[in-house]
């Protein structure tokens, strides 16, 4: 027989209680950062290793599937070489791995040459923001690796964004296409200043909005935009993208335009974090 006399709290009271608890959490985590950091770090101890592991498994599987394709081709073409196949397969997988590594290292090296002034750390992208409203992602380096909040992140020779939260073994990067991001930029050829701000609507078309260009500025379609010296978070001279579609604003004072970023934000595997902060440069120059 079922026990019906057991006392249970009606679930609507539990709901109300938990809702209040959530509201309390929102207030507490909004007001005190150490509390949030403590809770986040304890959760990260479990989740981040799993995310890293899943990433490794994904890469491993991709590697294996490449090898299998190669294997099938060889089997069709060289039936008489079946005895040698294992050997070839083993060699092949190593070669594919090395080839990928070589290409990636070459890319990173090329990047290095462009921004050789700044010290950098390479990091792997391990996960992304779960919803479609914002554009943030997690990298596998944290405060243990010397990452700090507001460090700039670059990839494919262009600006990706900056670090907005640092955990022990991970950090969260907010990209420049994120709706709340603003970057102060200047044209490489004419040094006109403008503001590059992420926009939800344009993000899907692959553009970022550029505003506050002076009406008299000689800026034209196809000009390179770099981060400017004015910005207090971004280091100067990092390529952001190419300007296009310049239009006059109604107020006869400013122009606005679209910017095509050099970074492909939908396909990011590895990024470089510049371990120098804008503040430290300013301190050096003032001393």
């Amino acid at each position, binding site marked *: 027989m079922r026990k019906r006399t057991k006392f249970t709290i009606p*679930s609507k009271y539990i709901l109300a209680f*938990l809702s209040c608890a959530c509201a309390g*959490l929102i207030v507490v985590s909004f007001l005190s950062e150490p509390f949030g950091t403590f809770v986040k770090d304890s959760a990260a101890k479990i989740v981040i290793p799993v995310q890293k592991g899943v990433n490794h498994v994904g890469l491993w599987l991709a590697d294996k599937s490449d090898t299998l394709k190669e294997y099938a081709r060889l089997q069709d073409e060289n039936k008489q070489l079946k005895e040698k196949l294992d050997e070839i397969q083993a060699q092949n997988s190593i070669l594919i791995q090395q080839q990928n590594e070589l290409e990636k290292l070459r890319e990173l090296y090329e990047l290095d040459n462009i921004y050789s002034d700044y010290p950098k750390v390479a990091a792997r992208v391990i*996960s992304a923001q*779960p919803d479609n409203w*914002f554009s943030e992602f997690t990298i596998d380096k944290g405060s243990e690796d010397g990452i700090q909040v507001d460090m700039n992140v670059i990839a494919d020779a262009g600006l990706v964004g900056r670090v907005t939260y640092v955990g022990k073994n991970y950090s969260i990067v907010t990209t420049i296409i994120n709706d709340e991001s603003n970057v102060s930029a200047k044209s490489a050829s004419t040094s006109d200043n403008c503001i590059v701000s992420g926009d939800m*609507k344009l993000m899907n078309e692959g553009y970022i909005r550029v505003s506050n260009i002076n009406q008299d500025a000689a800026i034209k379609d196809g000009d390179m935009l770099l981060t400017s010296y004015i910005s207090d978070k971004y280091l100067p001279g990092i390529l952001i993208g190419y300007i296009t579609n310049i239009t006059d604003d109604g107020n006869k004072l400013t122009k606005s335009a679209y910017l095509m970023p050099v970074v492909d934000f939908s396909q990011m595997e590895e990024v470089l974090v510049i371990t120098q902060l804008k503040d430290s440069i300013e301190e050096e120059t003032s001393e």
Partner: protein
Amino acid sequence: MLRNIVMALLIFIVFIIQTCFKQEITIGDVAPNLMLALICCIGFIYGKKPGMYCGFAAGLLIDLFYGYGGVIGLTAILLMNLGYVIGLFNEIFYSDDICIPVLLIVVSDLIYNFLYYCITFLLRGDLNLASYFQIIMFPEMIYTGFVSVFLYWFIKFLSVKIEKFEKRGEDKLVKGNFDKFD
């Protein structure tokens, strides 16, 4: 006990899929909201209490890593209330029919995204609701609805298996739900 462990594991796995494989599951710049679909499925199959607890846990997990502006509790409060409300439908409908849960998931995805928009965009003075509906809410709604068909089948299949496992050894052949028809 077993079902609690399975549910916790499901939440964790869906979170990992949603975050680690977001690039792979994204079609046309829109990824489905798997976590929301999972919470709705749990709420619809198991009732309001499990739906509420799972929504709370899942929301908290998302908030800890990707909370809006570093704030913890926002997604938790949304998903928890969602799980509770969907759980209310458990008492009204049979969980064998696939149409109603999918419809509920589609509607709740729309409501969830609307509330999310209100909190994160509208409060900053961004009034482009129409265009956001066009580029995010509507595609995500359709995609989530499509994925939820398979997800619901899977969760339902799991729940039947778990029930069989838990009832093993007992001589009960009739489910508690059928008591009232006797």
